Structures are given as structure tokens and as C-alpha cells.
């Protein structure tokens, strides 16, 4: 049949995927390749000369202790954030699909934080932590009170808290969709068989919502790993550079400390780590599911 001809394939592909491919190639792939090239140079970000230095930047990246600390910190932050984002999102989704009064109102309310960009969110929360909470604590204790943002663990806690606050509403909606995709009849059948509500949820609903879990976890992992906006506007790495996440370190390395090549190499390492974790997670999650 003519459908197997090469020319047919090419014309079909170009007709449908042509515009998307060109835009994707132009905005992502070409700069990515050029960026890859820059990791082999000792460019400082501003000068015209971009001397080729081979693998030096990668060696510098591997020897850059603060980078690995930042990456380790990012892993810790991501684990907690992903965990709590999904727990909170799931619980909220459970509650707003249980038929309580005003559930649509609640759904809308929980989604509000998603309407605002990370930078603005960070500034708002900074104000909350540094001024509002401090004012409350001071009026209770009568003296001066430190802000949560001023301690190492406190700053980390704040970052996680705000991330949960920011993403839980979005993930909640995906879980809501998951809940709604499970036919009520299946649960009823389980309850007739003697399950209580909790058991029915655990044994029937949750296994059927696998796709929602995979998607939410993938989205939350990738977003947490690449956190930058929030990091910048909420803590700026303080106190004592103890809340510098990987993306922020990369940015500082490239621009503030003017080691562009090293920063770019570190960013690529971040990309590889992130891709491996994300893909593994999707792979494990999708195993046992009908192939997508």
C-alpha cells in the first residue's frame, strides 16, 4: 500500500509534527548542543574568547564540594517535599471527593497557589516568615523572636513547607481525577464483600489510581529537583549558604563566580541525575500497568 512509502511517511510526519519539531529543535535541542559545547571551554560568561579546555570543567565539577553538598541537600529536600506534597494532595483529594459540602469551593481554594509564579510566592512567604510569624511569636513571648528562616533546619523546613503549599493543590486535582476514574460500583462491591471504607480505599481505589501516582510523583520530583525561583526569593541560600540548592549553585557558579563552563557542566550533571531518577520512577511505576 502507498502508506508504506517513504515519501508518504515523510509528508505525513512533516504535515503533523513538522511545526512542533522545528520549534522544539530550535528552542531546546540547538541551545542544548551549544551548551554542551560550552562545557568544554573555559569561558567566563562575558569575554569573547572561549578557549577549549577538554574535560577540565567536569573535573572541576566533580571536585566542587559545595556543589555536591547542594545536590545532596536537593535530594533531601526533594524526598521530603515529594512525600508531603503527595500525602497532602492525596488526603485533600480524598476529602474533596467524599461529597462534603462546598467541595468545589475547596478544590478551587487549594488550587490558588498555582496561579502565582515562584518568585512572587517566595517574596510573599518571606514576608510571612520574617515579619508576620515573628510578630506573632514576639507578642506571645514578649521578647524578640528569631525567624524560622534564620536557622539551617528552619530554612529547609520553610522551603519544604512552601513547596508543599505550592504544589499540593495541583497534584490534588490529578488525584481527584484518579478518584473519579475509579467506578463507584467496584468499591460498592468490595464493601458488600465485607470491606469497610478504609479497606475499600486501600485495596480497590488506590491500586486503580496507579497512573495518577506515577504522574504526580514524576511531576513533583522534576519540579523539586530543579527548584530555583522559590529558593532565590525565599532564602537566597541563607543562612550561611546552607539552603543553596543545586540549581542555585549552578547559577552562582556560572554567573556570580564567573566559571561559566563549570557551572554549565554542573547543570548537565544535574540534568542527568534528574533524568535518571525521573525515568526510573516512571519505569517502576508503569511496570505492571497496561503498556502506555
Amino acid at each position, binding site marked *: 500500500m502507498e502508506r508504506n512509502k517513504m515519501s508518504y511517511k515523510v509528508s505525513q510526519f512533516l504535515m503533523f509534527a513538522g511545526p512542533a519539531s522545528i520549534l522544539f529543535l530550535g528552542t531546546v535541542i540547538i541551545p542544548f548542543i551549544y551548551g554542551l559545547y560550552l562545557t568544554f571551554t573555559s569561558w567566563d*560568561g*562575558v*569575554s569573547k574568547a572561549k578557549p577549549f579546555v577538554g574535560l577540565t570543567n567536569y573535573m572541576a565539577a566533580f571536585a566542587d564540594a559545595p556543589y555536591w553538598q547542594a545536590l545532596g541537600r536537593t535530594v533531601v529536600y526533594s524526598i521530603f517535599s515529594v512525600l508531603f506534597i503527595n500525602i497532602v494532595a492525596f488526603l485533600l483529594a480524598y476529602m474533596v471527593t467524599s461529597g462534603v459540602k462546598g467541595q468545589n469551593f475547596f478544590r478551587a481554594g487549594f488550587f490558588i497557589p498555582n496561579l502565582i509564579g515562584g518568585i512572587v510566592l517566595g517574596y510573599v512567604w518571606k514576608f510571612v516568615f520574617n515579619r508576620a510569624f515573628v510578630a506573632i511569636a514576639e507578642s506571645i513571648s514578649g521578647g524578640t523572636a528569631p525567624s524560622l528562616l*534564620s536557622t539551617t533546619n528552619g530554612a529547609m523546613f520553610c522551603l519544604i513547607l512552601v513547596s508543599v503549599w505550592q504544589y499540593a493543590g495541583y497534584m490534588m486535582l490529578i488525584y481527584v481525577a484518579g478518584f473519579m476514574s475509579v467506578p463507584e460500583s467496584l468499591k460498592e462491591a468490595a464493601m458488600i464483600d465485607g470491606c469497610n471504607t478504609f479497606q475499600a480505599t486501600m485495596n480497590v481505589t488506590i491500586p486503580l489510581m496507579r497512573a495518577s501516582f506515577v504522574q504526580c510523583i514524576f511531576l513533583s520530583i522534576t519540579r523539586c529537583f530543579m527548584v530555583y525561583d522559590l529558593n532565590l526569593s525565599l532564602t537566597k541560600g541563607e543562612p*550561611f549558604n546552607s539552603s543553596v540548592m543545586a540549581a542555585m549553585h549552578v547559577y552562582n557558579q556560572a554567573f556570580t563566580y564567573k566559571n561559566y563552563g563549570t557551572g554549565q557542566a554542573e547543570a548537565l550533571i544535574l540534568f542527568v541525575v534528574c533524568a535518571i531518577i525521573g525515568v526510573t520512577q516512571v519505569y517502576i511505576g508503569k511496570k505492571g500497568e497496561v503498556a502506555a
Partner: protein
Amino acid sequence: MKNKTIMTVLKKVGAVALTGAMTMSLLAGCGTTGPADGAAAGAAGTEGGESAPATEAAASGDGASFTIFNSKMEIQDQLVEMASKYSEEKGVNVEVYYSSDTVAAHLSTRYASGEPYTLAMVDAKDVYSLAAEHALDLSGEDWVKDTTNAIAIDGKTYGFPVCVEARGIIYNADAIKKVTGKDFNPDDYATLDSFTALIEELKAGGMATPVGIMKEDWSLAAHYLAEVYEQREDPDAFVKELNAGSTDIGADEKFNSMMDTFDVLKANNYAAGSAISAEREVTEQKLAEGEIAFMFGGNWDWSVINAYDYSENMGIMPVPQNMDDGTNTKLVGGGSKFFIIDSSENTSAAQAQAAKDFLNWLVYDEAGQDFIVNTCALVPAFSNITLPVADPLGASVKKYADAGSLIANYNYLPDDHYSVLGAAFQKYLADQTDRPGFATEINTYWKGVTLAAH
């Protein structure tokens, strides 16, 4: 029926396509407005050096147009207003930009995109890294002879000093007088002993915590700690010794002298329990309104202080120290923020000339001088400008500068110095490390850096 649906679909598709095309052309239309598009067109041919200026001049008609990058947040408002006035009067289109990004990061994207600012206000260290490739040689300008604050590299002047800034302890004399009942004369408190006695007197008089400390890493490391390097004969040699590991800063007399003073400040910090989260705004408001009397800072802090109900008599005094080397009668500072003119082919000769004219206007025109001194409340960096400085902190700085009592800035600190040692200093401020621990971090840092040649 089948045909009908197909037709409607095709109509819809056609409509979408048409809307799309219309939007595109509309947008293309929008995009090509604006006077400086010639620059983009010129840059299109990668090395289109010759054609770019021609397009530019044609596009902008009579007067050239140029852009200013401002990195001094406090004067952004004033600059924008001045630019619109200047544009009107001189027939030159001036646009002012500001970015809260670091200067290097921001300029890096502008250089990469081939859209540099004609006139960029940068820090001293940036002049050294940018001058060779990106800045125009300004040695031939008139103003070079009227200042000692310009930056020259290899005998060529590149950086036009915007103002003079100096660091020290900002005091609120009214607040002190209110407690002690006596007029405050900063010269009486040059030693740490006398300063401590005054603090005790203030505390006894009811001002429980007379000091505020800015916890920002740049204030701690780039301003306070830097004085340890700067208050000596040859800062360069000292830094080289640190780098080579042949000197232990923990045993350095100057370091210990400065830290002794810092300990007194720290012990009397109003936010002692929450030193790391004290907000600059709040601290400066307290200082302005006399709730506290002292804060380490510089004359740039006036832009924050003057937004509150500030006291009349304020000023800057040297950091009190017991070390007897004369530095406790001097402020540390000098030229601050430098204009460089872009030297790439993206900037036309007409634009560069307009920028040069603008710099001359700042120095020699009465309106320009008035702008620097009165509108922006800066301390002028040029000896021919004799207008009295408007704000009290600036007046203090001017007094010390005129008397030759300014210790020069050390402009060659590595780019990550403020961040790494700022973090270490914050730890000290928060009592998470002691002085030997802090000294060790400084020693370790310096041994690990590569010093740039200068």
C-alpha cells in the same frame, strides 16, 4: 451529511489558520516598533560591523539614542526621571534599565545576545574583568584630570566613577544625646574602650541595645571583613600571603582588633537572639528613629534611612579600635560604581559619543552636578564639583575624603569571597562558630582560591 461536516471542519481550520496568520502579522508589526531596532537588524549579520552604525543612525534620526544600565538601586527612580528630561532637552533618546540580578550575570546575557548597554554602571571588580574586551578607552576625556577615583588599567582609563562611598559606623547623634544629655562628638570615641564606655552609658540610660547589625553577606564579608585587608600598608601582599598560606589570619593583629570591635557590636545587637533574620529595613528604621544608635554601614544607607522619620543629626564615624595604627580615624572607601561605555560593534560611534556627552554633562553641567549631589544625594567623585553634599551621611564621607582620611577600597577580592566568607561570618554572628573557627574558614578559603592577575 458527511460533506457538510467536512465543510464545517475545513471552514473552522481555515478560520484558525487565518486568525493565526493575522496574529502573526500583527505581532510582527508590534515587534518592529521602537527606535532601537536598528541595533537588532545590525546584529543580524554576525560581524556586520560597518552596517550597524549606519542603520542605527538612520533609525534614530537626528539625535542618537543610548541605553544606561543602572546597578545602583537607590537612584533608579531619579535616573529614570532625569533620563526623560535629558532626552527632551538634548534630543537624545535615553532609556534606563535596572536588574536585581548580579551585574555579571545580567551583562553576560546582554553580551551573549549582542544587545549590550551603551553605558553600563558596574562595580570596580567588573571594570577589571570587562574593560579589555567590552569597554571603550576613555583616557581622552576631560573629566579624567578632575578625579582621582577613575579606574585605569595599563594606563588607559575605562571606568567613570559615579560617586564616592565609604564605610564606617553610622551613628544617630540625637538618639545618643537624648540618653546622655551631651552632644555627641564621634572623634572622642576612636578607641574601642571609649566606645564601649559610651555603650555602657547608653545602656545605663535606658537604651537597652544600642546597636544594629546588618546580616547581609555583602555587608559582613565584602564591607566589614574587607577592612581587615584594607587597613594596612599593602593589602595585596597580605592577600598573597593568605593565598600562599604563609599567614594565619587568626594571629593577625588587625583581624583581632576588628573582631574585638565586632564582638562589642554583636553583644549589644538589638536582634541578638535573631541576628540572622534581622531585616535591613527594620534595623535602619530603628536607627533612623533613634531606637538604636549605631550600625555598621555606609553612606548608601541614607536612601533607606531617609524613607523613615529620621533624626536630624546622623553621620558616619570610623570603626572604633584599640589598635593604635591611625586607622581608627579614617573611613574606608573611595570611588564606587563605575560607568563603562560599550566598545562592541553593536554600539555605534554616535551612541558612544552621546554617552560620552552624558558623562561630561554629569561632571561639568550645573544640572548634571545638581543631579548627582542633590537629586541622588551622592558624594561626587570629581574635584571640580563643589556643591555641598545634601545628606548627613554623605557629608561625613565628604569631610573625611576632603581631609584625605579615606583608606582605599581593595577591589581585587575574588568573586565568591563575599558569598563564602559571608556565610562564615554569618555563622560567627549567630554564635555557631567562634573566632578561631572563623579564622580557620578564612584561611582555608584563601588557600583554595586562584588570584587573578592585576
